[in-house]
Each structure stands twice: as C-alpha cells, then as structure tokens.
C-alpha cells in the first residue's frame, strides 16, 4: 500500500522522493502543484515520469465513491493523438492526510475551451475541433471504447490554429460529470454514476453540442435546471432545444442537426465526421413523434407525445402506476394520441401483473412501470422506482450508493438508491428490460449477465450480496471496510498488510467483516474465494473460526511472503476454542506452547497446519474413545466392588465353614497321631 518500507539496512537517501509520492513505480506526483483546469473538473496534480519521458503529465485524483473506468485503464489508452491518454494508475501521495489513488494522464498543453468561450468561425470549428475529435473518437470506436466526457472544460486548445485535444475521461464513471445539455435526454435522466459506457453515438451527440456551443459562443440552455433541459429536448427535439432557434452557420447547422438526432443510429459515425462534407450530405429523415390532440397530465408534467410520456413516467412512477391501473392513460393513448398499439401493450402488462401472485406487489408494480416506460419509448434506460440507469452503469452506481451521504450506506432498504439497485439485481430487471429491446439488440447477453449478477447477490454470507457484487463489478475500487479507515486498498496483497496493521492497533477488531470478506472473494483466486464462501456455510463457531484461520493463512501464503505478527497474534488470541478441540491434556499443552512460538514468528500457515492437523485430531479422537472405554471398564469394576458386599459375605461364610471343618479334621488327625505315637 502506501507505506512502503525501506530495505533493511539501507539508510534513506535524503534526495530521493518520498516513496509514497510515486505512482505505479514510475510516476512522481507532486500534490502541492495542483493543475486547476487540467482535470476537466476533477482534481489534477503535476506529475513527472521517472524514466525520462518528457511529455508533461498530470495525476488525476480519483474519488472513492466515483470509481475510475477499469476497462480502459487496465488495457491502456495510449497511442491516440489528440487525447489525454492514461499511462498509469495506482496509489500515490496522500491528500489531506487520506490515501489517494491517481490516474496518470498526458497533461493538456493549453486552457480548456470553457475559458473565455466565444463564437468560433465555422472553418475553425470544423478544422480545429470537429476533425481532430472525430479522429480521436474513431480510434476509440475501433478499440470498442467511448469517451463520454466531451464538454468545454475537458477540451483543450493550446495555440491558435492548432487542433484541440480531448481531455481525460478515465478517472470517473462514464459521463458522470457531463452536464445534462451534453447528454441525450435518455442518459441525462440517469443517475450520474449509472450512465454506463454508452456508445460512440453518445460521444458524437456531445461533440454536436460542443460544436453548437462554439458556433454560438455560449453553452446552450445554460442556467436551466436538468429537468427543464430534459423537457425541452423531448418537447422540441434536441436540435431545436440546443440551438434555441438561433441560426448556426450552414455547414455546422446540417452537421449538428445530424449529430443531435434522437435515434443514435441516425447520427454520423466518427469516421464519417472526418469528412464533414460527406457527413453533411448524409441526411436521415426521422419521423417526429406523433403529437396528441390534447395533453395528458401526469404529476407535474404535461404530455404531448410518447417521448414525454416515457420521461414523465420515469420521473413520477407512482403517478404513472395510478394512471396505468385506472386505465386513464390507455384511454388517452387511444383517443388523444391515437396509439392504440401502445394502449393494448399496457393493458396486457396490467393483466400480466394482476395474474402474478408470486412476486411481491411493490416489486411487481415497479416492474410494470419499468416495462410500460420501455414500451413507450424504446430508447429509455432501465427505470426502476424513480431511478434511471443503464445496466453497465450498475457497478459505479453501487459504489455511489455506499457513499457517506447516501442513505443506503448501511445496507439495502426500500426507497434508497442501494435498495433500488438491490431490487433491480434481485428481480433481474436488466434481463426483462433488455428483452423489450430484442428487435434492436440481442437480449441474451444481458439476460445472462442479469442472472450472473443475481447469482452473486444470492451467495450466502459475506461471500455474496451487494458488497461482493460491488467489488466484482468495480475491480479498481478500494475496500470500503470501516476497519481500514482512509487506507486505499485495491488488491489482496495490500490487504494482508493493512489487516496486520489494523489488528495491531485494535486487537479486538473482527477483521473478517462482510466488506473485507467480499473484497477478498472478489479480488482473489478461486481457492481463496472458496474459503470465503466456506465462512458462510460454517454454522458451528469452531468451524467458522477454523474457516477464518484457513482464509487468512491462504491469504498470507498466496499474497504476502513476509511475517504478519499482528495477524498471527490476533489469530492466536482467538484460538483457545480451537486448541480446546484437543482432548488429551498433554497434547493440548504442547499445542499451546507451539502456538506461542509460531505467533512470534508471524506466519499463519504453520498455525493452520497445527490447529487443523487432521491425523493428529483423528488419533486424539481415537485416544479419547479408548480412554472412555477404559473408564467404563474401571467404572464397571468399581461398581462390581461396591455392589459385591453380599457376595463376599456368602463367600466368606462358605470359606469360613470349610476352614473350620478343615481345622476340625486336622484336630482329629492330630489327636489320632498323638495317640498312635503313645
């Protein structure tokens, strides 16, 4: 972790940088040199490479509750010109005394476009912004990635007549810091952490808004709240809402119109955007949504078409449920909107829900509204009781749900974010939602993924549940155990050291609490995972203690070669019940003595071998049985002696009479002999 000891015997070099300031073994981060505008809204610090690479670097500090994007960081984003690529990541110098984790990126060479935003001439917009960013997006698209952070404060321009560069987008969940105006209504309505990776068309959309901003010299819809922005986009269409009736230069006008198409499939690809003239000529006529003859009022929203209906139902699910169940919505759909197909679908949903007597009513109603929304607008995200999310955003959403400010930090409860996410996984809503988009995207992978997530949720004990799912879906987040405090532990090897320090400071701490167990299960190999799962199945406290010992011993033998004296002392302090399994007192004393010796050495596997000695325990058990048999024999003999008084009395009487008779005969024989001898 962050505290890396000096090699034994080597005095620290005063000129050498603090080992804690080095990230991934090769980047030195200076937390005192903050780069205010470089991180696109995230805190960024100056960084340098220790291998002589002259490219200016920055270190973006990752928030504990907003995980970095693992897919791009693990595979690496290097080699794309015009993009702040990530070159490394890891723990680095602490900030405000708390451990910190950084993503090292190429630093932007100029200020962001948001600084002094002014109208740009059309040729400059196309040549310096559209073409370079389209090239970057094309590279990303080829690798199957998205950027999802195209906004004025994350696009940098170093010099006039030089192309802009795209900032980093790897140190936070996709689109988490995107303003609503730069996202489609369907992603803007989502929880910021749960917008998912999306598709390259979402980047094209954000680029379209950026182009409009540069052409207009201002950020469109600035100052409006997110709900108003959503409503305007849905009511007037994205292009109209963004431009607000202002005219854009002709070329840009056509390009932006295409880039802001409601249907992602209608937006030009990045490759096409590199040839703006070609992209301009590609016009896809999308049919505007049918407008109702009279509006429908759902909660505070006035609805005129399917899109606003879906959005209103997502924002106000309880009102939506009432309107569906009492049939008013279906009546409006038939009579005012003329969409009897949707009305029939909703009636079918109500009928199916009424026939479902197995599912909990609350969950069934939530599922009903979710399917009604998906039926109303096929592009809507998964909407569950007021929470909107895309399934690939579940991981970051789970992390956000456990943030200190969230009410669900203590565990899932109905109504809070954590509870809603729990219900989504438990009901496999992801699979149901995907099945409703079958005609556009195959749902089988989503249904399989939903089933796998639910299987993790259903694993009993600390090896499963939401914590386990959280660590499984977010391979870069630190262990959130309260025992670890501000430490940033992202792998099991560091966890062993941290646990050692924890139990040294607090010997009474119960270290295998659910977060730590789930973390070990998710981040370790199969053997260790089996040990974690075994913790749940051990009903006997002794077996559970032995399971904990096995787990910690495996942890040390696989991930930490050095002594862990704190952990061994902790284990030995909890081992009397395990030592007491030895019935033979002499052997027990020997084990106790040996334990003391092993605790001082700091290695858990020998302690496990000593306490789990199957052959020894078998011999001990056999010895006990033999001892009990001997005891029973002795008891029987003692009983026999205690109860044998009468028998001995009879024997004594018989023997006494025989002896007396013998003496009488001896007397006769003696007198006869004496008489014979005269």
């Amino acid at each position, binding site marked *: 972790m962050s505290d890396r000891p000096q090699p034994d015997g080597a005095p620290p070099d005063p000129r050498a940088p603090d080992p804690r300031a080095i990230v991934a073994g090769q980047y030195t981060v200076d937390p005192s040199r903050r780069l205010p505008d470089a991180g696109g809204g995230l805190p960024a610090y100056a960084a340098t490479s220790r291998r002589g690479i002259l490219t200016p670097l920055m270190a973006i500090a990752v928030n504990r509750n907003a995980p970095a994007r693992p897919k791009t960081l693990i595979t690496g984003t290097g080699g794309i010109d015009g993009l702040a690529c990530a070159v490394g990541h890891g723990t680095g110098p602490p900030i405000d005394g708390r451990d910190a984790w950084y993503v090292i990126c190429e630093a932007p060479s100029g200020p962001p476009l948001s600084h002094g935003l002014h109208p740009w001439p059309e040729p400059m917009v196309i040549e310096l912004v559209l073409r370079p960013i389209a090239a970057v997006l094309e590279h990303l698209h080829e690798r199957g990635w998205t950027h999802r952070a195209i906004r004025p404060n994350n696009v940098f321009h170093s010099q006039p007549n030089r192309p802009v560069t795209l900032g980093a987008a790897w140190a936070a969940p996709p689109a988490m810091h995107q303003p609503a105006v730069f996202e489609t209504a369907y992603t803007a309505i989502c929880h910021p952490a749960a917008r998912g990776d999306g598709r390259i068309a979402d980047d094209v959309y954000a680029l379209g808004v950026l182009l409009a901003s540069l052409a207009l010299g201002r950020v469109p819809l600035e100052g409006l709240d997110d709900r108003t922005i959503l409503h305007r986009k849905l009511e007037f269409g994205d292009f109209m809402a963004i431009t607000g009736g202002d005219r854009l230069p002709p070329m840009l006008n056509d390009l932006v119109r295409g880039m802001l198409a409601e249907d992602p499939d209608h937006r030009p690809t990045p490759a096409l955007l590199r040839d703006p003239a070609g992209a301009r000529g590609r016009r896809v006529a999308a049919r505007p949504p049918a407008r109702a003859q009279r509006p429908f009022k759902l909660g505070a929203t006035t609805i005129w078409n399917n899109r606003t209906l879906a959005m209103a139902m997502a924002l106000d699910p309880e009102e939506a449920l009432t309107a569906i169940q009492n049939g008013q919505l279906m009546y409006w759909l038939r009579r005012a909107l003329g969409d009897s197909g949707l009305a029939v679908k909703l009636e079918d949903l109500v009928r199916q829900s009424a026939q479902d007597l197995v599912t909990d009513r609350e969950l069934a109603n939530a599922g009903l509204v979710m399917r009604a929304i998906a039926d109303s607008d096929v592009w809507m995200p998964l909407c569950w009781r007021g929470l909107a999310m895309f399934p690939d955003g579940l991981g970051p959403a789970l992390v956000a749900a456990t943030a200190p400010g969230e009410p669900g930090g203590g565990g899932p409860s109905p109504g809070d974010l954590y509870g809603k996410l729990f219900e989504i996984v438990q009901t496999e809503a992801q699979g149901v939602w995907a099945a409703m988009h079958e005609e556009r995207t195959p749902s089988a992978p989503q249904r399989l993924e939903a089933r796998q997530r639910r299987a993790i949720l259903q694993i009993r004990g600390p090896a499963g549940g939401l914590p386990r799912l959280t660590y499984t879906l977010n391979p870069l987040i630190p262990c959130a155990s309260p025992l670890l405090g501000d430490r940033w532990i992202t792998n099991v090897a560091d966890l062993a050291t941290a646990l050692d320090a924890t139990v040294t400071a607090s010997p009474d701490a119960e270290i295998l609490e659910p977060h730590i167990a789930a973390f070990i299960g998710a981040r370790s190999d199969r053997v260790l995972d089996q040990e974690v799962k075994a913790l749940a199945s051990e009903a006997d406290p002794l077996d559970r203690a032995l399971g904990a010992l096995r787990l910690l011993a495996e942890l040390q033998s696989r991930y930490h070669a050095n002594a862990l004296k704190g952990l061994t002392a902790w284990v030995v302090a909890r081992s009397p019940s395990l030592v007491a399994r030895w019935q*033979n007192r002499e052997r*027990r004393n020997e084990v106790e003595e040996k334990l003391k010796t092993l605790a001082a050495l700091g290695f858990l596997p020998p302690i496990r071998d000593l306490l789990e000695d199957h052959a020894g325990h078998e011999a001990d058990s056999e010895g006990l049985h033999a001892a009990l048999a*001997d005891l029973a024999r002795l008891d029987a003999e*003692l009983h026999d002696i*205690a109860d044998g008084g009468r028998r001995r009395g009879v024997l004594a*009487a018989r023997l*006494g009479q025989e002896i*007396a008779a013998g003496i*009488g005969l001896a007397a*006769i024989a003696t007198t006869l002999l004496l008489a014979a001898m005269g």
Partner: protein
Amino acid sequence: MAKAAKAGKAPKHAAPREAGGGAGGGAGGGVRSVVWLSGLACGVLAAIAPGVAIVAAGLLAPGFLALKLDRDPGRPVARTVLTCGLAGCVHPVIALWNTGQSFDAAMSIVTDPGTLGVAWSAAAAGWLLTQLAPLLVRAALEAGALGRATRLRAARGRLAEAWGIDHATREPGQGG
C-alpha cells in the same frame, strides 16, 4: 358336576404335592435313611460295644445337639463341632479300650468332669471356630476389595485428568 369338579381339582393340587413330595421325599428319604442307618449303627454299636457307646454318647452330646439344631445345608456347624468333639473323644476311648471296655469303666469315664470338660470344650472350640472363621475370611476379603477399589480409583483419576473427563460427575459409587 361335583364329581367333575373334584376330578378337575385333584390334579391341580396333585402336581405340586407330587413335585414337592418327590423332591422332599427324595431329600427326606435320604435324611431318613441316614437317620435310620445312624440309628442302626448306634444300635449295633450299643449291642456290640456298650461301653464305647456310652462314652461316645456322653462325650459327643454337644455334637449331637449341634446336629439336631443345625439346619444349614451340609450342617457345617454340626460337622465342625462333631469333628472337634471326636478329637476330644480319642483319649477317653483309648482309655476305655485299655480298661477292658466295661460298663463301669465307661460310666467312670463319662462321669469324670475332666474328661467330659475336655471333650465338650473341644466341641465348644469347634463351634467357636465356625463362628469366627467366616468373620475373619470376610474381613480379609473386604480388605482386598478396598485395596483394589483404591487402585482402580487412582487409575481412573489419572485417566480422567489426562483426557479432561469430568470424573466427579461420572465416577460410580461416590457417597454410597
């Protein structure tokens, strides 16, 4: 009907009577035979050697009394009293034999307090022996059992301690 009832009852009582009579008759017959044979022997002795018979009758009177009173199987008390009494009769009978076995000599021997005292004391010693010997044997047997119980308890305690078995709750014969 009455006849039938009587006929039915008869075998019911006959069986035990036969069984008891059989067994008792066998034993009683044997005892009676011994008594008859003893009586016959005594009669023969009295007819052939009346002096010896008188001496034996006088000196062995405690033995005969014990024989009469002892009802235990094998008559162990009477047996010892008689054998001891016989040991006390050897010298008087030899003396009678040496004096010609006359009736007078027999009477003088029987009426001699010393001779009578020795014979009857021998019989009394025999009786005393039958009373003391069982007690002494019983004491020896109890001492042996006590020693063995002590050794067993010690072994049991060691075993229980070595294996941590709660011997206080399991040990038999505690307090009894």
